[in-house]
């Protein structure tokens, strides 16, 4: 059933500051990506995480980073960064450089870093969901106690393959947590126009899978709820279906510059009141954990850090033309030439 009861926070000041730094870093990183895109230094489809930071921060702090499996769609910068992927490599990939996580071959939508437990970075809506269950299948097959976080959007939650996967995950008891990042929109389509029942959390129930709806704009609560669920799944080895409510302040992708086609400025304004960063700032101030000056200092520090990341990435070369043929196969070249 839909959760709500907010428990009293017990996070240490240090942990809260880390949440703050993580969310703010993602925000600035993503804003920089938007700039880079507008400058024409990134292309194609690029989707940023602005507004959704608390969600990824909460979950990534609930798992065994680098050991547990994480997989998501194309809105993937935050997940990689929080798992410990070198930000320069992420920015370089976004800019199509040789130094990128995929040598410039994947781009923003296809960030991968298996060494840190991150399996992408996928572009076909819903297509990676069975892959994530497959990672969990491997855990069960091997008898290890890894947990898989399998992220998707609210629009993706309509794809048939998601239900096929839920049925098998329930049937075979796979340690897979399906997490809907419900930001209320699938590109230009509002939740109400794409889901028969907007309460997506119910969709796990017919498969005998524990299902819940959570708030993704409160990083403290998110981390708490995530931790509970991760530990339960690690113990039971059974799947979990989680709908997390959030919002994206940016356009769907960097190429989406007419948000008024599907929502009003007023609506966006209202949504800003839920801004997870502003919300945490309030908490930090209320509890006298941090004052404005400190916040501004951290902000300046992170802006500067992101700038350096960008400069380093921008200074790195594009892939060599011959590389186009590399890594299609692990052991052979394709036929070359037109």
């Amino acid at each position, binding site marked *: 059933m839909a959760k709500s009861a907010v428990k009293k926070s017990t996070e240490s000041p240090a942990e809260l500051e880390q949440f703050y730094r993580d969310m703010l870093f993602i925000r600035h990183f993503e804003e920089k990506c938007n700039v880079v895109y507008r400058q024409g230094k990134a292309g194609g*489809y690029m989707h940023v995480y602005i507004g959704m930071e608390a969600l990824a921060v909460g979950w990534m702090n609930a798992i065994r980073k680098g050991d547990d499996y994480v997989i998501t769609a194309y809105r993937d910068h935050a997940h990689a960064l929080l798992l410990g992927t070198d930000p320069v490599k992420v920015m370089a990939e976004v800019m199509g450089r040789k130094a990128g996580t995929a040598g410039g*071959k994947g781009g923003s939508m296809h960030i991968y870093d298996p060494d840190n437990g991150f399996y992408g970075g996928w572009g076909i809506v819903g297509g990676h969901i069975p892959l994530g269950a497959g990672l969990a299948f491997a855990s069960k097959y091997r008898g290890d106690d890894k947990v898989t976080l399998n992220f998707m959007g609210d*629009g993706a939650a309509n794809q048939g393959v998601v239900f096929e996967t839920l049925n098998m995950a329930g049937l075979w008891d796979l340690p897979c947590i399906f997490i809907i990042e419900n930001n209320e929109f699938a590109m230009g389509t509002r939740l109400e126009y794409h889901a028969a029942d907007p309460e997506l959390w119910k969709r796990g129930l017919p498969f005998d899978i524990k299902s819940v709806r959570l708030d993704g704009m409160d990083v403290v609560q998110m981390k708490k709820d995530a931790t509970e669920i991760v530990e339960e799944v690690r113990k039971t080895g059974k799947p979990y279906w989680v709908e997390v409510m959030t919002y994206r302040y940016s356009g769907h992708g960097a190429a989406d510059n007419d948000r008024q086609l*599907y929502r009003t400025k007023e609506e966006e304004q209202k949504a800003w009141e839920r801004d997870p960063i502003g919300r945490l700032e309030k908490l930090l101030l209320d509890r006298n954990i941090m004052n404005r000056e400190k916040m501004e200092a951290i902000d300046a520090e992170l802006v500067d850090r992101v700038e350096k990341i960008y400069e380093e990435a921008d200074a790195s070369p594009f*892939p060599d033309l011959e590389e186009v043929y590399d890594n*299609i196969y692990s052991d052979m070249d394709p036929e070359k030439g037109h």
Partner: protein
Amino acid sequence: MAATLEMTYREALQKSLYEEMDLNADIFMMGEDIGRYEGTFKVTKGFFPKYGHRRVVDTPITEAGFTGMAIGAAMAGLRPVVEFMTMSFAILALDQIINHAAKVHYMTNGVVKCPIVIRGPGGAAKQLSAQHSHSLEGWFAHVPGLKVVAPATCEDAYGMLKSAIRDDNPVIFTENPGLYAMKGSIPDDQSFSVPIGKANILKEGKDISLIGYSRMTQVNLLAAELLEKDGIDAEVVDVRSLLPLDTETIYASVRKTHRSVVVYEDWRSGGFGAEIAARIAEDCFDHLDAPVGRVGGLNVPMPYARNLELQCIPDENDVVAAVRKLG
């Protein structure tokens, strides 16, 4: 001869859709973000306000499901025009298209018709990477029961879409993202249409036949100009329709020029250009002074980096090089 109108390929498609929807109330459009959002490539811009959600249906992201629903509606006598945000996503609906739309007329021995048009941008746009840059027309053109067209000009975009919508069989109508903004002229005549199944000679020439479809026909026109400078007089054959394939027009050109290069954006190996080349080589054997050349996309999943991507997609220089190679 009627006056002509200047417009983009995109506007030509829109004009065709407006006119057909006004003519026949059984026609409706279905697809992702085609209504309120106006379509990712803006082809359906303006239709939602005019026709409303009954005839311009925004769907969830469930390609197999909504394609199947459109097929069922067509079996019941409606005339759906389905848009895929990119043709790459048709891969998720292939079972519906190939096992249901393409076969129902035959499996009912002619009792049930399936008048559906499936349209959208096919091929590479710009840095959309490996999963969003497919050219699937060759797969569709392999399937009996489907018709497959790939117009390269504004006039054909306008005229062939009309024929596709009026056709009682499933028609795959593939547009190339690189063509939407291209300007051209169409006859100022609402009764105008271009039949499916006829290739078109866009430029006459005597030395070599450059054979292609969709955007590659435009590339061939550029190549022809470059070749001109070297005193090579190329004929540009716009295939337009892959299934049915107008071999008559293609062969006539090759029998005249005795040389040919088939150009397509899809992966070179196993693309539909192979079928065209194989037919020319077999049926024009005694008329060929050189092997049938082929220019296709590199056999590589489309990379993101622009410099790598550009390498993968054939351009006029690749065509010129292929012509030279024939000697």
